[in-house]
């Protein structure tokens, strides 16, 4: 417990000081957005074992909604973000209600197919700009007081939201609701026999996950200033699965670490090796599945527990 606290403290300190250490704030913010996305995904996959193969639908649609409202409708930043989250929540509700009835592979396939539908809607819709996407999204300000156009200010804004959500996810997992989810994951028929309305719990988890993914998307739209079809694409959905698996599903830090590794690899490797990036990422994926099923953080936790477990 103490070790985990220390690690988290060190990371937070590092995060707070990062812009002053010469790291590129826009890149750091991108890392935070995707880490948030991965944490949202992990809430579903890690704690209920539901593999949503189309999570980019929520990420991207919130990004589009926020981007459009802030750019063409002149909405304020906070309002825009809230609208994005609401939209992804509703989308999560609709898709979740359909998908949750099935399990395992079928669940994954439904989420995949419906995410494709969302992709094509975004492709056709006028307001998304189709293949061109939305550009030049202004960052606006927090409630008209704190202007966010400066990279450093924006960074701390995003960091604050990230830390708040991260702590929020911890609370959810440790709450009675979270305990029921764990019970469902461990033995669903038993949970049903105990009287829990399992489908309802799963749906709530799904909607929560979708909303937080939407939050990540809205932030990304504001940070980078553009939204494109990539954000609702199959590639992005697959990325977040990879990030979570790599870092360790079912852990708190896992998705964060996984997101950092994947985004950094994509950013810096593509300069050096071009198309080999997908090969490397695919290879890491395969290695994770074959050997490191617990992911980076998961494996470390296991080693650590072994050493401190005294007979």
């Amino acid at each position: 417990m103490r070790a985990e606290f220390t690690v988290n403290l060190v990371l937070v300190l590092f995060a707070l000081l990062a812009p002053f250490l010469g790291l590129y704030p826009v890149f750091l913010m991108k890392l935070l957005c995707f880490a948030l996305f991965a944490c949202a995904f992990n809430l579903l996959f890690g704690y209920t074992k539901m593999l949503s193969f189309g999570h980019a639908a929520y990420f991207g649609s919130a990004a589009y909604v926020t981007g459009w409202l802030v750019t063409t409708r002149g909405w304020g930043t906070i309002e825009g973000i809230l609208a994005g989250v609401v939209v992804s929540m509703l989308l999560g509700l609709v898709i979740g209600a359909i998908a949750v009835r099935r399990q395992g592979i079928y669940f994954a396939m439904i989420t995949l197919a419906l995410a494709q539908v969302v992709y094509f809607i975004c492709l056709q819709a006028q307001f998304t700009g189709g293949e061109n996407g939305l550009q030049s999204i202004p960052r606006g300000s927090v409630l008209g007081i704190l202007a966010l156009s400066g990279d450093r200010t924006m960074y701390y804004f995003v960091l604050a939201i990230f830390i708040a959500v991260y702590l929020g996810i911890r609370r959810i997992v440790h709450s009675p609701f979270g305990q029921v989810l764990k019970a469902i994951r461990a033995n669903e028929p038993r949970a049903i026999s105990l009287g829990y309305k399992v489908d309802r719990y799963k749906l709530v988890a799904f909607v929560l996950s979708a909303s937080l993914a939407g939050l990540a998307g809205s932030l990304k739209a504001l940070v980078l200033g553009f939204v494109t079809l990539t954000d609702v694409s199959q590639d992005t959905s697959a990325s977040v699965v990879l990030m979570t698996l790599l870092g360790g599903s079912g852990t708190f830090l896992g998705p964060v670490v996984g997101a950092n590794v994947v985004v950094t690899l994509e950013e810096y490797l593509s300069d050096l090796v071009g198309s080999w990036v997908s090969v490397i990422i695919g290879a890491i994926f395969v290695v994770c599945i074959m050997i490191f099923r617990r992911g980076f953080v998961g494996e470390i936790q296991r080693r650590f527990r072994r050493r401190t477990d005294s007979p």
Partner: protein
Amino acid sequence: MTTVFGVPLPAILGQLMLGLVNGSFYALLSLGLAVIFGLLGVVNFAHGAFYMLGAFAAYIGLQFLGVNYWLALLLAPLAVGVLGIIIERLFLRHLYQLEPIYGLLLTFGIALIAEGIMRSQFGASGKSYPVPELLRGGFNLGFMVLPIYRAWVVLASVTVCGMTWFLIERTRLGAMLRAATENAKLTQAFGINVPVMVMLTFGAGVALAALAGVLAAPVVQVSPLMGSSLVIVVFAVVVIGGMGSIAGAIVSGLVLGLIEGFTKVIYPEASNIVVFVIMAVVLIWRPAGLFGKEQ
């Protein structure tokens, strides 16, 4: 001129014809996927990648090795099938005792690797593969000119699908395969080498995908990304047909190709998603698929 829904009949017939051609591809690909899932329980996300590798095998054969189209029809599926067997042996075999999600994710990773390698070698734009001499030209059907090659595709796919169905449902070998699916231990107790059968079946399913790739090469241009957009549609088709059913996959593939073609005339923008919408509806109403048995 007769019209249906306000669209001239020749236009509809033309799109339906093209839909039949696309449907043949769907049927062939779904067949491979259904074989693998039905008999192995593995959701092969790399199916699109094997399709792409089949097309590339044909392309590379032609460009560098002087292998013509007809030879490629035979050799490419063999080569890619062997690759599939190697993957089954080295990777998939170890995941059978885990949840099926892991098999899905592993094949997904394999697909990424395969596509990445081909992309770095050949770039992302399509390479041209010529239609073989014998099949050039077209039939004038009145409402459209149907290239002979496309008619050949329909013929070849339907024949292969039919032969495969017959093999699985009506022969002794097929019976052994089906028995191994239902109860591997019992079948093994009868002296049948189940692991080898599994391996060969995976190879056969993969070979079917590669065959579809060779057939597709002159039509859609050989590109490393040709499989990834197709694989999701094929999955939807298999789910609609029923994931364990061979006949279901074939029939659904053909029918969905026709539906897609029809949608292109009535409401073109929706043609890309009509398959997914149907899949969602089928899954809600009849989760095992139209022809499948609940697992």
